[in-house]
């Protein structure tokens, strides 16, 4: 077969995949601007579902809660994760390999198992369901991502830079502040954005840990979907997907997702 034809077939295939990945999201966004309550076509432009959303106290509450939980999670996970990454990068010690392996279970074990285990444990220690439990869970899920992303950035750090600074008379704190931190800053920002995304988009663990009537946005959407679809859910879902894609686009500027840069 002609290799140019083959290359073009390949491009077509990639194009079809992109259509498959984006079409449903675009359809959902499109339908959120349709006036009909029963998703009837022809399309008639309307903002009524967004207006209804603005006056829906339950959804506004859940959205506020989700954003607050994501912010607290981001701060905690980024701080703890960065500290751990620095120690794992800078020092050689016994058990280091074990600590690195310990980051694997939170990522690899299905969230259904982690979420139900947390529910049992938090009830066992008397904490029960609620926002504090959700935050504890989210931080634990986000931590490994922060550590992986920050460590990847640290691995590109040239230790001779620190030595050069020291030889020119800089003290430990000055070196950290003026040499090390500026270098790993993009990694920390990317790690923070990942942590935000992990928390803001998290459904499974929040579902088991949040209290009925006190739930996060994805949990509220799940329970409403099961009662029946309304274009209002399309509207809030469209907003969520725009936010989470924007956060990840931003993160991509600071890390390379494993691709070359």
């Amino acid at each position, binding site marked *: 077969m002609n290799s140019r034809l083959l290359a073009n077939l390949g491009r077509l295939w*990639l194009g079809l995949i992109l259509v498959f990945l984006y*079409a449903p*999201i675009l359809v959902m966004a499109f339908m959120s601007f349709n006036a009909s309550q029963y998703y009837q076509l022809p399309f008639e432009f309307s903002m009524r579902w967004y207006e209804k959303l603005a006056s829906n106290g339950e959804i506004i509450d859940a959205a506020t809660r989700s954003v607050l939980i994501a912010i607290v999670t981001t701060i905690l996970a980024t701080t703890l994760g960065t*500290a751990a990454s620095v120690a794992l990068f800078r020092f050689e010690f016994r058990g280091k390999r074990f600590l690195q392996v310990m980051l694997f279970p939170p990522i690899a074990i299905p969230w259904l*198992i982690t979420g*139900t285990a947390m529910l049992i444990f938090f009830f066992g220690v008397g904490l029960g369901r609620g926002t504090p439990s959700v935050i504890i869970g989210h931080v634990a899920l986000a931590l490994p991502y922060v550590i992986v992303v920050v460590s990847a950035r640290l691995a590109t750090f040239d230790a001779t830079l620190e030595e050069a600074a020291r030889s020119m008379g800089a003290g430990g704190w000055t070196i950290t502040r003026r040499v090390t931190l500026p270098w790993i800053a993009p990694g920390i920002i990317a790690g923070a954005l990942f942590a935000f995304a992990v928390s803001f988009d998290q459904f499974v663990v929040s579902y088991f840990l949040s209290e009925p009537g006190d739930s996060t946005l994805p949990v509220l959407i799940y329970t409403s979907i099961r009662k029946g679809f309304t274009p209002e*859910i*399309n509207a809030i879902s469209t907003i969520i997907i725009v936010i989470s*894609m924007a956060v990840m*686009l931003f993160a991509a500027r600071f890390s390379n997702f494993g691709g070359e840069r």
Partner: protein
Amino acid sequence: MSTVLAKQDRLKIFGLLSPAYLWLTVAIFLPLSAMLYFSFLSDVPFGQKEWFHTTENYKAFFTTPTYSILLWKSLRLALMVTVISVFIGFPCAYVLAKTIKGRAREALFLLVILPFWSNSLVRIFSWAIVLRGNGILEVGLNAVLPFEVDVNLMFSTPAIVIGLVHSYLPYVILTSYLALQAIDDNLIDAARSMGAGKLTILWRIILPLSLPGLLAGAVLIFVPVVGSFMEPRILGGRVGTYFGTVIEDQFVAVYNWPLGAALSFVLLAVVLLILAISSPILRKART
């Protein structure tokens, strides 16, 4: 590197590491241990009711055929989703890694990965809008085709498979892309100059060298799909009963937590077995 650390260094290491690992212990490892303990109880130990230690919950799994049938159903679903994703995703990764060059590649790669990092629940919901009867797929097809078709995929197994493939496809594209990118183009050129055909190159060079990445992607898809419950619930309706939805029910509807814990542990055992078998491959894929 010296093995004996100064006391000051040891303090530093401890101070930097302990908050993160303490958190992981409290939020992940202690809960998993608590769940293991619970799976051997007859009832939750914080109610008014009597409780005692028992292996009844595991016996229930082995003696009630429903559970093993559903676990098998979940494993088959995961296998189907994985195989479809590999066949769709690998050529896509190949085109990205070897055909497209420069800035276009970077942008397209980001476009493929982006949905993966957006809200999975919302993406599943968006398929519900597309696939429902009288939905956009049916109206669209009827507008194009000369004959009437009746497309109502909603609440069927194909709907669940489509939704799950959509959710996890980027995994296999990502890992295959990384593996393919690492293959030296000179190797392919050398083979070609010595007269190897396209199929020979694919079969003897590209596939063997990218296999670790491909398999790593497959494992990363298989494991979460075995434990999926939200996707079958939303897209499958009544046919969407799987091992994951049964576990969910024990915790949110039936309130038999010890049985739920036992079923969760059976699922965990299956997952760990898969990870253990594939760990040599995963390790190879990382380097």
